[in-house]
């Protein structure tokens, strides 16, 4: 009996019963906690992985991407399979809970049927259930992007997430957005964390000395387990370097191998890479290194219902925003993984009960801000989402806000992968705006840029996304644009992917020498001036009251 079969059985049952006018309560009857958690245990080690929660204590709607293009070796391989093709590949019934959780297909209707996903209190229930069943065989690992990108995580400088996660008792974690709290704050938290904050690839840039512990050695089910930690390699490039001026990152492939070799020499029977590299980087890494049994991937927010095997290494992709908990049971004998069983457990918040202890902590954290966060600041008539390689409708609203509130011709909004989705007809609360914008360098700048500079920025980001060698991909989706149309040819070489740039306000081609007024946010440059982006969005929504962005038609993608 495989885990996927169980998942699909639930899916099929639900789909069979609800072809048309299905109600939400009807859907829930098909989704029971016991079914979601059902797992035939295997072997002597259970790895539990959560990642990219992005400060989300409570359940959210989060639509998976429709555009997630792979290039080079990753072309058309998971996770670069989306929508209908994803359903076909994993034989998931359309309209099923799995289809809702894993693809953007029919998202608004399925979201109404199956409800929000995630919530740290539901995750706590799942983690406790696995521990109750598996005892001291369990290792819980947090892949990072945990301490930032919600209102409470921003104002508490990550303290809310640190305290909530502490209740889950993780065995180790790694970081990326954590570093945007600034080096001093990270050090302050790490000192009192109570479990290792790993980062084999973070070095003091003066002496090249390790800034964090490279690995943790654990003992479970009489197996010595080495957990090697890998921070997001391009943190000081993708995020402001001035916030961590004395730390240098990078992939440091040879050092990963050296740590694996050291772990094996020290008697590790199982070597796990807790990674924030992103899936494609990890796939390449797995193909080049020896001795890694499992890579717990993160950063690119991919949710895959099966582990991906590269040579002898298993890659697990556990999604984001608390939507999933990964459970990987391993039979480890004589320093080898003999067998495994994997389940990507979907956290349907209406089906999985809330853990009282965690719920109390979440209430304590949110209570002082609850009324403010719940305040409605607008309404959307269409689906708002961010995730996807190109413009999302949520970013459409942000770009419109920048254009109107900052009186700009062109708007730029970063291609972050975090931020919850909103359904057609849903009220937009202050919290929704913060969930899409809360970060430590939010200034909405207004400046002039030449057409040539704008093209250079688009080319630069395009290569960071579509360079055929994943080691040259810096992360993030394509920068979102407002007021500007362009064509992107994904398969072209660096510096030649972007063409047919046109200013929407005038309909004229973008001129290389001409200066344009540009507004954007999340600049990595120190001392960027401007109001925080959330205030810009609040002001825009106060005037507009109702938004109805359509799918972006101003970005034309060729060679996808």
């Amino acid at each position: 009996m495989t885990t996927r079969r169980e998942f699909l059985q639930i899916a099929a049952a639900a789909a069979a019963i609800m072809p048309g006018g299905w109600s939400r309560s009807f859907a829930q009857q098909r989704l029971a906690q016991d079914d979601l958690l059902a797992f035939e245990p295997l072997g002597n080690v259970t790895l539990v992985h959560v990642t990219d929660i992005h400060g989300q204590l409570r359940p959210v709607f989060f639509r998976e991407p429709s555009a997630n293009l792979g290039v080079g070796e990753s072309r058309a391989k998971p996770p670069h399979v989306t929508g209908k093709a994803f359903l076909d590949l994993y034989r998931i019934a359309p309209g099923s809970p799995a289809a809702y959780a894993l693809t953007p297909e029919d998202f608004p209707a399925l979201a109404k049927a199956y409800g929000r996903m995630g919530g740290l209190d539901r995750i706590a229930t799942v983690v406790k259930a696995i521990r109750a069943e598996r005892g001291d065989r369990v290792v819980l690992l947090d892949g990072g992007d945990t301490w930032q990108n919600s209102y409470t995580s921003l104002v508490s400088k990550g303290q809310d997430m640190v305290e909530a996660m502490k209740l889950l008792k993780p065995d180790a974690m790694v970081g990326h957005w954590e570093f945007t709290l600034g080096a001093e704050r990270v050090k302050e938290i790490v000192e009192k964390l109570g479990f290792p904050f790993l980062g084999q690839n973070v070095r003091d840039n003066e002496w090249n000395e390790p800034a964090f512990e490279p690995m943790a050695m654990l003992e479970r089910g009489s197996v010595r387990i080495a957990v090697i930690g890998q921070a997001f390699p391009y943190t000081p490039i993708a995020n402001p370097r001035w916030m961590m001026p004395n730390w240098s990152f990078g992939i440091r492939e040879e050092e990963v191998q050296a740590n694996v070799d050291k772990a094996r020499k020290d008697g590790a029977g199982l070597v796990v890479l807790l990674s924030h590299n992103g899936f494609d980087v990890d796939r390449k890494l797995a193909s080049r290194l020896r001795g890694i049994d499992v890579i717990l991937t993160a950063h690119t927010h991919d949710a895959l219902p099966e582990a991906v095997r590269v040579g002898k290494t298993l890659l697990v992709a556990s999604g984001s925003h608390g939507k999933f908990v990964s459970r990987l049971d391993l039979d480890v004998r004589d320093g080898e993984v003999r067998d495994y069983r994997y389940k990507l457990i979907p956290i349907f918040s209406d089906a999985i009960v809330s853990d009282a202890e965690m719920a109390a902590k979440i209430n304590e954290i949110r209570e002082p801000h609850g009324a403010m966060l719940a305040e409605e600041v607008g309404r959307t008539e269409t689906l708002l989402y961010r995730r996807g390689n190109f413009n999302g409708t949520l970013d459409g609203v942000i770009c419109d806000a920048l254009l109107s509130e900052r009186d700009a011709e062109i708007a730029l909004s970063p291609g972050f992968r975090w931020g919850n989705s909103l359904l057609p007809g849903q009220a937009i609360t202050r919290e929704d705006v913060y969930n899409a914008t809360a970060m430590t360098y939010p200034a909405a700048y207004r400046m002039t840029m030449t057409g040539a500079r704008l093209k250079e920025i688009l080319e630069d980001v395009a290569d960071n996304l579509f360079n055929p060698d994943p080691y040259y991909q810096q992360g993030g989706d394509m920068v979102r644009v407002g007021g500007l149309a362009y064509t992107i040819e994904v398969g072209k070489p660096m510096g030649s992917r972007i063409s047919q740039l046109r200013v929407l306000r005038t309909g004229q081609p973008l001129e290389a020498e001409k200066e344009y007024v540009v507004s954007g946010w999340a600049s990595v440059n120190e001392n960027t001036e401007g109001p925080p982006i959330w205030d810009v969005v609040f002001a825009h929504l106060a005037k507009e009251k109702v938004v109805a962005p359509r799918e972006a038609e101003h970005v034309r993608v060729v060679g996808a």
Partner: protein
Amino acid sequence: MRRSLELSRRRALTLGAGALAATMIGGAPAHAKNDSDELIKKFAGGKEPVKGKVKLDLPEIAENGNTVPMNVSVESPMTEQSHVTDLMIVADANPRGGVVTFRFSPLSGVAEANTRIRLAETQNVIALAKMNDGSVFMDTKLVKVTIGGCGG
């Protein structure tokens, strides 16, 4: 850093500093073809550089183009009979191609050097090692110097 390298490294760093100073005052337009091809031709002395033996360690994407950590080593017994004499680093899109040249002798013990270089933009860095028999080996690495941001 290995002690046996101290002498050559000190010299190398001096040379490196000179090269860096030169790049800073150079003002050639972006993407201008610089003199790297001529430098390579001159260094190789008529030999065709062969890929191998040289290992150039640079980040795929520079955190700061103004100071990119570089480690370069050459596989060689470093004996009187067989050793590296010169190790030249060029960058093909800096205002000037020359970055640094390290000189070695059997007394160096190992042919390895470690310094920081400046890269004006995304480009290839090429390391060429000349052996005492005149043969030339090379390694090359593309280093991206990006605007940054947008990582999520």
